[in-house]
């Protein structure tokens, strides 16, 4: 056994920080926070231009010769600058899927467009009546010659307001069990019949409802086989679930808040840290963070040695997301009346970070398979308990 964690990107960290200093504008993070759009077009264009998006991809599909290690370090450094790249995260998932199941022509056009920054793809899985039970999708796609006619509605199509396409899960066959009648399409957002409405969330992120009224797309925009959408979508899900845990070497939440708590006095004169209840809170958070890190490391290790971390990914997501919820709730409690102050107030402790994440971490236990789904996967996969969802 060996728990050594080597920062394989250490040699690239300095250069990555320099890239951020040169290219990232100081106002972008605040703009993302206030607009709720977790995508900054200028940033994305620069990442594409510098070959960072295309690093590691084959040149024939538009890949770049940028060092993939450097590229990952730059993306880490951008995240450390409190910037989200949700548009790239979803696009990257779809590009990987296209690489697995797409036609040669699709690989050239879609991957190429994604890597040069022109194509940006949102995920259209959830619907008003189906979230974690994603295979219950009702959006229909009906074949009409060389085209498909798509009708329905998707929910939580995050970042779609910035995207050129939505990766839509649609029902193409009503006569088979629900998992077997689904097909995936790449639907442009500039076509007739496509519409979207913003939805604002507790954590501040803007998402969308997207509408498809007899939207016509050519068969060349079908990704994977007809009625094979479930399998195609699961290729992408592998990239969404499980990685989890901290990878960068920066200070932990417990360390950062402890440092603040030691240097900040309450009205009573003692510091926040002097209160033994807060010491216990911070020690508990530190333990949970280490456990979450280890569970995430296990997933990465299994990937490295060629094993499939199914149950382990679910454990990581379940533990980490539930722990995040507990932590911010406890830390807001620690602040007492000041715990309610939002970042916009301008007078919040820790710039309102704790209040903000108290709201934003709520979604971690919901998206990408709610905690209840993860528990079922674990109960069935690890403990051999009977599958209790109704047979399809």
């Amino acid at each position, binding site marked *: 056994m*060996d728990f050594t964690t080597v920062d394989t990107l250490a040699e690239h960290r300095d250069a990555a920080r320099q890239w951020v200093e040169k290219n990232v504008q100081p106002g972008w993070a605040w703009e993302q926070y206030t607009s709720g759009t977790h995508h900054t077009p200028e940033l994305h264009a620069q990442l594409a231009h510098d070959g960072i998006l295309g690093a590691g991809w084959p040149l024939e599909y538009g890949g770049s010769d940028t060092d993939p290690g450097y590229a990952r370090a730059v993306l880490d450094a951008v995240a450390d600058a409190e910037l989200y790249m949700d548009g790239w995260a979803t696009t990257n998932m779809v590009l990987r899927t296209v690489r697995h199941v797409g036609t040669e022509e699709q690989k050239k056009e879609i991957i190429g467009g994604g890597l040069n920054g022109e194509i940006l793809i949102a995920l259209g899985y959830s619907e008003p009546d189906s979230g974690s039970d994603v295979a219950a999708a009702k959006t229909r796609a009906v074949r009409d010659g060389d085209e498909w006619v798509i009708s329905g509605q998707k929910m939580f199509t995050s970042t779609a307001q910035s995207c050129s396409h939505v990766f839509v899960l649609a029902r193409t066959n009503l006569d088979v069990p629900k998992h077997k009648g689904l097909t995936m399409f790449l639907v442009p957002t500039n076509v007739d019949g496509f519409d979207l409405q913003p939805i604002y969330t507790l954590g501040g992120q803007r998402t969308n409802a997207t509408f498809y009224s007899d939207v016509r797309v050519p068969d060349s925009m079908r990704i994977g086989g007809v009625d094979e959408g479930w399998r195609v979508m699961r290729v992408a899900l592998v990239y969404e679930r499980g990685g989890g845990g901290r990878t960068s070497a920066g200070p932990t939440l417990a360390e950062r808040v402890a440092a603040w708590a030691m240097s900040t006095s309450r009205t009573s004169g003692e510091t926040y840290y002097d209160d033994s209840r807060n010491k216990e809170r911070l020690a508990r958070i530190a333990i949970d963070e280490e456990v979450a890190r280890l569970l995430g490391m296990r997933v990465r290790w299994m990937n490295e040695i060629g094993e499939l971390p199914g149950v382990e990914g679910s454990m990581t997501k379940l533990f980490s997301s539930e722990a995040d919820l507990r932590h911010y709730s406890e830390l807001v409690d620690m602040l007492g009346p000041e715990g309610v102050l939002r970042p916009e107030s301008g007078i919040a402790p820790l710039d309102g970070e704790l209040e903000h994440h108290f709201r934003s971490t709520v979604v971690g236990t919901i998206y990408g398979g709610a905690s209840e789904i993860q528990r079922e996967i674990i109960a069935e996969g690890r403990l051999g308990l009977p599958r209790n969802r109704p047979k399809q």
Partner: protein
Amino acid sequence: MDLSYSDDQQQLRENLSSFFSKESTPERVRAAEPSGFDVELWDKITAMGLPAMAVPEDLGGGGASALDLVLTAEEFGKRIPPVPLIEGVAATNLLGRLCATASSEVAAQLLADAVAGDALVSLALNPLVAGVARLVPAGAVADAVLALDGGDVVAFRSSEVSPRSPLPVPSNLGTAPLADRGAGVDDKVVLASGPEAVAAYARARQEWQLLMAGALVGLAQTSLEMGADYAQQRHAFGVLIAWFQTVQHRLADGITTLEGARLLTYEAAWAADEGLANTAVLASMAFLFSSEMAFRVAADSLHLHGGYGYTLEYDIQMYFRRAKAWPLAYGDPKDGYGSLAAQLFEHEER
């Protein structure tokens, strides 16, 4: 990064698993319950060299690593055998370290006796109260108890107390052979003094935490399996209770925190073997996290047994009681979180 067991580690786990399954059946654990000690089983594990397994080979021990110890503790915890292996290992290792640095004839003789299986040595985990070590784990059966007395590491000994002539045991939750030592019949002998001795004692307490974390992971594993097995046999409302989501989800939360605790405990043992500076922090973390996890898992598993879980006929209550009682020997966990915070954060400038 490598989370696999080596061939030797795998062999050790299998050997101990079959040994404890055979020698520490639920019937045997129950039979020992009045005193919490089974002298025949103690003779067997000393014959195997388990209490001295991590003492350096040149001192007659097995030279095992901290990871080997944790794997041993885990198999121990699975079968809750009525022998003080955790305390025995921590105390015997302390003797080994004292003998490596200081030369006390008594310490050397105690170590030789412990390695030969002729002496059961235990560890007082808490400060003395008016010269007495209170409620020492295995205090009722120990030939000698090691304790910290100011700047001295001392041994409390009596020719009248041994595995074959135990002291009376106060009735207790974990049915463990607890007893006060250091008063009455006991002599006190100073084994070593000064900062090195104090540091060696602190390391023994840390080692006890680490091994207890491993034992609690094992205890929780068996508790969880009992709950899952019962849920697959018991019907209610016409179906197996294993079908109910409230049952499944509790067990899923349990196995998730259990696997997290196991990783954390292995990491702490690995850090100890590598001599890393954060070993003490990780050992405390593993102990605190495993303690809560094991109690939660055992309590949930007992609950899934319904009314039967509350009866003494079912085995789960034996695990439930020990899940609470074992770590309490170290003290109130709230104190543990406070001192962990100090270790983690207070080295930074204030």
